[in-house]
Every structure is written in structure tokens, then in C-alpha cells.
């Protein structure tokens, strides 16, 4: 009956998102008086697995199988469904990131379980099972009733605070029923940048728009992000123009992020841009146009020329 949470790992390591998921699952388990079982796929050291206990997991099911070394959504959904059946889980928690978006819908059909996607708060109600979800790209929220016996929730990254726990989790190794023929996709090449803060993981994001005027003006913005331990982002036209890499594009058609602090520099605040950043806890706007719509979404604003303001901010942070 336990709440099942799928905890993805990155080269054998968990990250904040994994602990957010377990914290969230623990919150759900508390509501329905059950416990949390985490399922991990791939080789993860025992000490790392145990970390999940620190956020409320009582049991960890560790699945290692060579055929699961790369994400194949069909095979992964199969394994998670198997574990869910074994545990009798009625609620399954998955991240609303690329991996979760690949697995959750397949799992849904397999288990005939309704999906509440992109949730950021604990369920509003247990019976009927009701969740609060983002719709219309952030322009509305909906209370969604999941009517099926089993429910799947996908949690938005950076939206749920970590809740430490003193659980000591037990670890169970599980041999999944996956042979090579189950896996129908093959990964032939991987390109990954290492050592750089990922935009989706960052607590602080400094983002530039067309108001930055030219790709040559970015150094104070990057410096500010570095000084604050944050990541850099941009609006769509900026990446379309090739001023900044595509991976930095935030908004409806780019990345959806929810950092603690989002600083929008020379960004007008179009609804499509806001769709990607409106869940940020604090938004700061720096814009030369006092009527720019971004100020309506910001808690702090500076009306001024970004190219003059940024170096002063860098100075202030350095001191």
C-alpha cells in the first residue's frame, strides 16, 4: 500500500530533485497513513541509496539490470509497474522532467492510473483524490480529481521544500524481468556538458532578453550569475538569434523553471516568456521601459539601462 516514488539517478548519484520527490511522497504517505517506498533503477551505491531515508523513504527497491542502462520508456514503465504491483502501491510519484514525462504516461496506461501532471503542492483532498495543477501554461490552475484506483503524480522540479526525516531505510535488491528483446530503442551517442550548473537545478537564474542589445554584452550578466552561484538563461528571440545557446531559452516553448530568484534583464515579460518562469519564488526585473509588463510579475524592479545597472550589481555583490 506504500506510496511509490521513482527516484532517477545521474551517474549513480541523486540530486536535490530526488529528495524533493521523496519529501513529497512522504507528505502523501502521511495523508493516507502509509509509508514511502523508493524505486531506483541502475547502479547506485548503498550509502547513496540510504540518503533517500533522510527524506522519508522506509524502503528502497534497487533495480539493476544491464538492459536498463539507458532510458527506454517502455521497459522502465514495465519495471515500475511490476514494483508497484508487488508493493500494492496506490499512489506513484515521478518527476515532471524529461524522464518522468517519458515514463508516466506509459505507466498510466499499463496500470489504468490517472495522471496529475506538474503538481507542486500536496493533494488538496484524499477522497475524492484531488490535486492542484498548473494549466494554460501558468495562466490558470485546476483542481483535478483522479478517479482511478491507482494515481500517478508528476512533481514539478524546485516546487516542493525538502523535509528531513530520521528514517533508516531498508534496501531490497530486485531483479527485474527485462531481457534484451524488451528494449526496443538504442542510444548510439551521448553528448553531455559537465561541470556546469544546470538551468533546471539552479536556485538563482540571471536571464537576458533582447534588451541586452548584442551578444557581446553578456559578460557582466554571466559574471553576476557566477558570483551568486546561479545559472544563466535567456528569452526566445535571444536564442533564436544565436546570441546564447538554445538550452538557455526559458518560456512556454523552452525550459520551465522555478528558481528561488529569477532576474529578468532586458526582457519585456511576454506571456509566453512568463509561462516558463512564473513559478519562481522571487522575480526581479531590470528594464529601461517603466511600462514593460515584466514589472507586473516582479517583486523588485529597477527602471534603467541594463548595460549600466549590471556592472554596478556585480560591484555590489563583490563587496
Amino acid at each position, binding site marked *: 500500500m506504500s506510496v511509490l516514488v521513482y527516484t532517477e539517478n545521474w551517474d549513480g548519484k541523486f540530486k536535490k530533485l530526488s529528495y524533493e520527490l521523496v519529501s513529497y511522497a512522504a507528505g502523501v504517505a502521511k495523508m493516507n497513513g502509509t509509508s514511502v517506498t523508493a524505486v531506483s533503477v541502475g547502479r547506485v551505491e548503498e550509502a547513496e541509496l540510504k540518503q533517500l531515508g533522510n527524506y522519508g523513504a522506509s524502503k528502497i527497491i534497487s533495480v539493476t539490470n544491464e538492459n536498463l542502462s539507458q532510458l527506454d520508456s517502455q521497459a522502465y514503465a514495465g519495471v515500475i509497474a511490476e514494483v508497484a504491483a508487488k508493493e500494492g502501491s496506490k499512489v506513484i510519484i515521478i518527476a515532471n522532467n524529461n524522464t518522468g514525462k517519458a515514463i508516466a504516461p506509459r505507466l498510466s496506461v499499463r496500470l489504468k492510473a490517472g495522471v496529475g501532471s506538474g503538481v507542486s503542492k500536496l493533494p488538496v483532498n484524499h477522497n475524492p483524490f484531488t490535486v492542484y495543477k498548473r494549466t494554460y501554461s501558468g*495562466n490558470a490552475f485546476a483542481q483535478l480529481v483522479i478517479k482511478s484506483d491507482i494515481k500517478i503524480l508528476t512533481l514539478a522540479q524546485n516546487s516542493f521544500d525538502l523535509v528531513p526525516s530520521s528514517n533508516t531505510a531498508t534496501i531490497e535488491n530486485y531483479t527485474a524481468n527485462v531481457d534484451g528483446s524488451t528494449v526496443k530503442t538504442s542510444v548510439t551517442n551521448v553528448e553531455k556538458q559537465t561541470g556546469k550548473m544546470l538551468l533546471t537545478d539552479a536556485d538563482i537564474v540571471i536571464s537576458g532578453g533582447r534588451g541586452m542589445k548584442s551578444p557581446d554584452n553578456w559578460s557582466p550578466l554571466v559574471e553576476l550569475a557566477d558570483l551568486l552561484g546561479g545559472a544563466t538563461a535567456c528569452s526566445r528571440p535571444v536564442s533564436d538569434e544565436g546570441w546564447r545557446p538554445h538550452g538557455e531559452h526559458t518560456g512556454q516553448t523552452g525550459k520551465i523553471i522555478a528558481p528561488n530568484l529569477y532576474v529578468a534583464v532586458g526582457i519585456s515579460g511576454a506571456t509566453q516568456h512568463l509561462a516558463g518562469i512564473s513559478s519562481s519564488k522571487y522575480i526581479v526585473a531590470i528594464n529601461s521601459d517603466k511600462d514593460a509588463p515584466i514589472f507586473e510579475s516582479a517583486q523588485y*524592479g529597477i527602471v534603467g539601462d541594463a548595460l549600466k545597472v549590471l556592472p554596478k550589481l556585480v560591484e555590489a555583490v563583490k563587496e
Partner: protein
Amino acid sequence: MKILVCISNVPDTTTKIKFAAGNTSIDTAGIQWVINPWDELSLTRALELKDDTSNGIKSVTVIHVGPAASETTIRKALAIGADDAVRVNAEPLDAYYTAAQIAEVVKKEQFDVVFCGIESSDFNGSTVGGMVAEFLGVPSVSAVSGIKFENGQAVLTREIDGGKETVTVSAPCVAIVQKGIAKEPRIAAMRGIMMARSKPVKVFEPVAVEPLTQVVEFEKPAPRAACKYIDAENPRQLIELLQNEAKVI
């Protein structure tokens, strides 16, 4: 090879969303409906692939689950260049229901590759594509930002945290696409609009499926506190506020 592109129609992305019927539905008065941005891009890419005759693509069909009123959206897709269309005559009650309808049509009409957008900008569910694949029991690849065909296989670029992967898969399969799949959405030309009128739209009645979820109430996002302005000559004050008031740095 036959390609099927799933098309959802959504309010234009600048629409101010209002509610109706005691906040249980969206007030559709004055809404301008458009093809969901990702679906528009996936249709564009499917057509580009068909244009390259070496891919041997016989047809690009669009499918939409929706009432007769949404036929204008289908005509738009035909004007952009789809060869024909299927409409399942039903309200798309939820993702599970919608995906079940699409899968049923794929079984009947035998498509090789199904394209689906990563999400619709209205429900933000990110689930229909994967569900269609699971209903069909075929592989799916999600977060796809590039697709081509090589030696009879689909070669896909998949976005991962901080990078990308190349994934190969044989048809039949489902590609769930996102930003990057095509540069700019293809726009309908006059000739396309004229031709769209006579292109075939097959209408199927829905199969009986119980939806698994239901929206019971809509709400507006909580308003943010009014903006506090800081003098441009003294940005140091911003840093102080972020440190001491917001406590985020």
C-alpha cells in the same frame, strides 16, 4: 511509410484566460484557437521529411479528437500541407480518453510513425504521446528535438539534462517532440488554403473509454505582491533587499 501527426487546438498563447459555469470550465467567448505550438512544429517536420523523397513517405495525416467546431483547426493543418485528416468526433475528456481514441485510429489505419507534441499549452499534461504508444504496445521516444530516417530506422535526438542523446528505433513508433524539431512553423500559402478545402477529412465515432481524471474547478494564479522599485543609480539596495528581505542570496 505513413506518418500521423496529432493536433490539438488551444487558445492563442496570449489569451487572457477567463472561467465560466462556476469556474468549472473555460469561457471560450472571443478565444482565438490555434494549433498547439509543438504540434505545428511537428507537422512542419513531418512535411519536411516527406519533401525529401528519399525518405519514401507516402502520406502525412493529421488527427484531431474534437467536435465538428474544431474542424477549422484541421483545415489549417491541411492548408499547411498535410495530405488528409482524421477527426474523432468527441470531446477530448482527458488525456487517457484522447490517447485511447488516437490509438484506435492508428490500429485501423496502420500508421508507421506517430508524432505527438510534448505537451498542449492548455492542459500542460505531457501525457498523450506516451499513452498512445503504450496503448499500441510500440516504443516511444520523448523530448525529441530532431528526427530523420536512416536505413529504415528513425534516428532521433533526445534532450537530456545538460545534453542530448542519439536514439534509434524501428517503426512502428511514437516520437514525442519539442523545441528544435523544426526551426519555424510552416505557414499556409494561398494555394494550400485553396487545396485544403477539398482534402479528405475522415470522421470516426469514438470508442467507449472511461476518462480517469476530471477538472472540477479552475482558479486564477495568486497575484504577486506589487513591485518594489529600486533606484537605478543605487542597485546596491537591490542586493541588500535580496539578502535581508527576500533571503534568496
